[in-house]
């Protein structure tokens, strides 16, 4: 049937609303601060036959763009093969297996069949990041795991709710294998209730517009989303754009891992060819297929935010060449770094390739690491154990219009950092500094944003520090003549002696005594364009604000400053810039 464009738009808004309400319901009722505060969750509607993404909540964590499409597709296939139980109304499947269309083990997905009459019409699914799913280290981010079993409990798709009732026996098995299990019931109920809200709202939408109209609209919207993505692709000149991005190491073997990408525009399709990327690695810096695809999708959405998140939008995007690389790891490769770190480097590769084609739309590389620092230990004053996480942001890349944002959140996240005061209330630590990392923004016509510089001391008891970060060896890439941002630096001061992790920003279980300190300096963003073309007044302003030194102004930007507050000396600057240009 043919539908008028207005009905289409209205149904598109309606489907979006269903997903947004699921997102809201999930976050508001969840217990885990990772879900409730950091919005590390996502909700969507998926096709009954091929699991294709119909609509996804606007407030979902970016890394989940498209991942549940892969997991729903896998679930449908397993049901058809008899590898998973057949669905009944009111059932909710739980699954966190990374190799069956997932991310890391902590991202637990629920899927609920949605029926019209007695026909399975579509799937509602959501993902929430649980604070713990067992494994060697609390929270699941092990820097040195060598197989997935060390990372936690792995669940194939099984029905946690059967016809509306929770399977208490299955739940007991899960609870016996994870930490702080007593509060998980709150998250489980919130996650299931969100799907219930979705079912109710989707039912109301279909009652209002009629099943045939909604079905027709979903099919048409898929076509239109593909059309919209193709129109975006048309902005890219025909050709091949290559880039390489690097992961420092896998945490076990200290060797850099390359992501080699060639993006080719051919007609109205875009091919992302990762041939030549590093082989699957021993440590946890592997990615799984679903996460690799979703990283490409989320990078494209950062470039074209107006395209709706839908299977149609992904259709013109072809990802190839990942087989036998660390971007398509298979069981039992460890994967805890895939969503937090590798995904961001894949996005960096996409940005670095496409900024050549779309210099007005794409930025230089952002900090690109989640900055995961975990401190686990015992607090004698409270007589109990604790696990503290500090995730941190860094500088964003410069772009055609502006300098990069300072201390932005990770490429794949949208969460807020916890305040220092809250951290000190909850844990036996004292921060000595929480500051802008001076000089860290990559030089450029528009410089990168600045990273974060913090130093935190253990006050009492004992603890072990673990780091799963990246960009310690290579700074975020500058583009079009801009310089790289400053790389990540981690220093542990034990008994006054500085220790730098062997893998620079990755190491597990470094013992700390009271008075020992951890000093982290997160990456600055990459610079955009030739620094010698930066407005000298902007350089003077940065020096007045003590973001760079006067020496930096001369060496990086070729700007000579005089006076207090500093002002650029036009003549001397022109001369210095001329000299620096000829030196190249």
């Amino acid at each position, binding site marked *: 049937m043919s539908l008028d464009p207005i009905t289409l738009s*209205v149904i598109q808004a309606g489907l979006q609303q269903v997903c947004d309400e699921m997102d*809201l319901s999930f976050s508001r009722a969840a*217990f885990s601060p990772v879900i409730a*505060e950091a919005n590390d969750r996502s909700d969507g509607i998926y096709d009954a036959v091929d699991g294709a993404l119909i609509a996804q909540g606007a407030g979902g964590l970016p890394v989940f763009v498209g991942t549940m499409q892969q997991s729903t597709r896998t679930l449908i296939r397993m049901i058809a093969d008899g590898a998973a139980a057949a669905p009944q109304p009111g059932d909710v499947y739980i699954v966190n297996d990374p190799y069956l269309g997932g991310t890391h083990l902590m991202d637990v997905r629920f899927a609920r069949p949605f029926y019209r009459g007695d026909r399975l019409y579509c799937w509602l699914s959501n993902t929430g990041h649980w604070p713990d799913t067992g494994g060697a280290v609390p929270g699941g981010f092990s820097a040195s795991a060598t197989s997935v079993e060390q990372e936690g409990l792995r669940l194939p798709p099984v029905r946690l709710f059967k016809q509306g009732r929770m399977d208490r026996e299955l739940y007991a098995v899960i609870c016996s294998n994870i930490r702080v299990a*007593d509060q998980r019931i709150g998250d489980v109920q919130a996650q299931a209730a969100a799907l219930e809200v979705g079912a109710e709202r989707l039912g109301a939408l279909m009652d209002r517009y009629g099943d045939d109209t909604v079905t027709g609209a979903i099919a048409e919207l898929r076509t239109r989303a593909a*059309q919209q993505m193709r129109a975006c692709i048309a902005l890219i000149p025909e050709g091949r754009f290559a880039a390489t991005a690097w992961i420092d190491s896998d945490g076990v073997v200290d060797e850099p891992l390359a992501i080699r990408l060639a993006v080719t525009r051919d007609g109205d399709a875009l091919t992302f060819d990762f041939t030549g990327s590093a082989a699957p690695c021993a440590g946890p810096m592997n990615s799984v297929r679903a996460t690799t695809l979703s990283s490409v999708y989320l990078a494209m959405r950062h470039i074209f935010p107006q395209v709706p998140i839908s299977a149609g939008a992904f259709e013109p995007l072809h990802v190839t060449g990942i087989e036998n690389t660390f971007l398509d790891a298979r069981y039992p490769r460890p994967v805890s770094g895939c969503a937090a770190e590798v995904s961001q480097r894949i996005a960096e590769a996409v940005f670095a390739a496409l900024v050549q084609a779309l210099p007005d739309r794409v930025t230089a590389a952002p900090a690109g690491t989640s900055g995961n620092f975990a401190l686990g230990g015992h607090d004698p004053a409270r007589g109990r154990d604790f696990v503290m996480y500090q995730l941190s942001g860094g500088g964003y890349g410069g772009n055609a219009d502006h300098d990069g944002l300072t201390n932005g959140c990770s490429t794949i996240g949208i969460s807020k950092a916890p305040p220092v005061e809250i951290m000190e209330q909850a844990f036996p630590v004292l921060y000595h500094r929480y500051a802008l990392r001076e000089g860290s923004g990559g030089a450029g016509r528009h410089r990168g944003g600045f990273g974060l510089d913090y130093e935190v001391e253990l006050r009492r008891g004992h603890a072990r520090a673990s780091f799963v970060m990246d960009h310690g060896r290579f700074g975020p890439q500058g583009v079009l003549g801009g310089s790289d941002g400053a790389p990540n630096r981690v220093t542990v001061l034990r008994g006054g002696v500085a220790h730098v992790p062997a893998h620079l920003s990755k190491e597990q279980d470094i013992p700390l005594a009271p008075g020992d300190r951890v000093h982290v300096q997160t990456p600055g963003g990459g610079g955009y364009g030739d620094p010698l073309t930066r407005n000298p007044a902007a350089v003077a302003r940065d020096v007045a604000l003590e973001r760079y030194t006067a020496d930096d102004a001369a060496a990086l930007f070729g700007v000579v400053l005089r006076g207090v507050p500093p002002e650029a000396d036009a003549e001397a600057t022109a001369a210095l810039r001329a000299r620096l240009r000829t030196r190249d």
Partner: protein
Amino acid sequence: MTRTPSGLVVGVDVGGTFTDLVQLDQASGRVRIAKVPSTPANQAFGVIDALNAAEVDLPALDLIVHGTTTTTNAVLERKLDRTGLITTRGFRDVLELGRRTRPQPYGMTGTFTPVIPRDLRLEVPERMDAAGAIVIPLDEDAVLAAGRRLLEAGCVSVVVHFLHAYANPQHERRAGALLRTVWPNDHITLGHALLSESREFERGVTAAVNASVQPLLARYVRRLSGELSRGGYRGQMLVMTGNGGMVSADRVADEAAKTVMSGPASGVMAAAHIGRRTGVPDLISYDMGGTSTDVALIRGAQPQVSNEIELEYAMPIHVPMVDVRSVGAGGGSIARVTEAGLLQVGPDSAGAVPGPICYGRGGTEPTISDANLMLGRLDAGRFAGGDGAAVAPAFARLGAALGLDAAGAAEAVLRMANTTMAGAIRMVSLSLGADPRDFALFAFGGAGPLHACELARELGIPRVLIPGRPGITNAIGCVVADLRHDFVNTVNTPVAALAPGRLAQVFATQAERGHRLIDAETVGIRARRVLHSVDMQFVGQTHLLRVDLDRPDIAPEALQELFEQVYWRRFRVRLPEIRASVVNANTSVIGTRAEPDLSALIDPAGRRADVASARTATRPVRFGTDWCDAAVYWRDHLPLRAAIPGPAVVEQMDTTVLIPPGDRATGDADGNLLIAIGGAP
């Protein structure tokens, strides 16, 4: 010197485009109103213009209540007086680093300008820990040196913001005392004084905003008071604050940050007041103007108050304020066709300049207002400077891409706009734990009454309430507002561990402080009300749920049960295995002022004997795909309790009310219109 009160009260609200004024004569019930252009450079001129336009007799006036956007605009445009920060060593960048976010989920760009620039943020050695114990003593010489350095740098205001000052304010107080010996004026803000709760970014920004707008607000109030007294005014001036209450002009600058979000609050206060008088106390207020639409929730004639409002990206102002959410679209929102061939309305807006095509100021892209004109909902004759005819070609072009004729395209624009707005209103309502169907829609602002009925139908809302003067509702909010003081104390204790009488004690202290503040005001009040609530959560959760209490001495068991009920209603989840915890205890003390008579907001002298004689015209208006002949009425001519079946259009100076087919409007004794949607009672 005392004089006999005249009963004349003026409310004057300065908005982005217009300054609105209403004068109530409490003795005779007579009303005067005025609407004049705002004067952004110095809002006082617009206020004086409005007083002149309404021919207000200043010497005879008792009271002026003033809503101002002086501080809001100053923060948004960063046109702030030079302000310095003195803070804990190692933490001067807290205001710039924020909470590590970005302005939007997708798109790796964005900019942010901190309230105080880095070179005016100085550090001194001092440190408290989270328990309020001193880790590093305050370096007093460093404080004095920092103060002098900031003065040399030209600062006229200073904020002292130390880590954990909410737990122990000793260092901040001492630093404040030291600074007073060198600082030439009163503009010294202590971080803990305005907001005594943890989270250094939010508390710091709130304090920094306060310090940065304080000199400006003090100057503005002084200048305006001077102008008024030159005009012979001898009465009091009160200024609206963001919690919907008001404060004497001579004290408002002390807590200047509380005025930053006061603009939208007054409209919501008016809605609450009118809703209570007319017997519709549960409302969603919907204020649609040219560039934006504000939505708020009112339960039992009480607006929802929040202390977690963000003025814009990374600009939290954490003092209790009426929770008004901006949902984007306004009359100027532009309609376009996307690459996918789908219609999209907003987020781009034609703004005030050039504005919609029909304003005739150079706008070329079709907007929501233009669609209303195209479909006969707005009267082309009312756009004196504009051009109704210029609208049709723009919709013809838009329609060509959609396979629609011009009118069809305009209809599509309104349908999309209403769908999007309804979705946004629904999300606001749900996030505040309310089902919109349980509320009436209170529509105001220049464009609100045009869209209200169709939005209500979309949302399943049974009734719409349109006040007498939708275009000056904020000024009315000023004259109906009460004295109000809000208190929040952190309790952070599981219900099971709550000592008997602990909450009652906190509430009693809060109430006493409120009563004392109200005693200190000279403006007359009729009654006092004290409201108590607690913010609760299940142990382990981070989100809070507000539980209103009908008495302060509630038993812990009853509290747990009450919370579980509220939680079930909101989330449909029961968690009997997890204990609840009380995070905050809140008290509001409200001094209710004399009830103003609003029945003459529309001049009774203009009323005609019957509805038929208020009819001015009949014109074709399009609803859906059909054109029908709608009766057009002039609102000022409608008799009291007029009944008007849709389709109809009610026009008045400040807005146009649209009553679609199937809906039915009925006037009440105050001249409000209550519209029943569809067959609703």
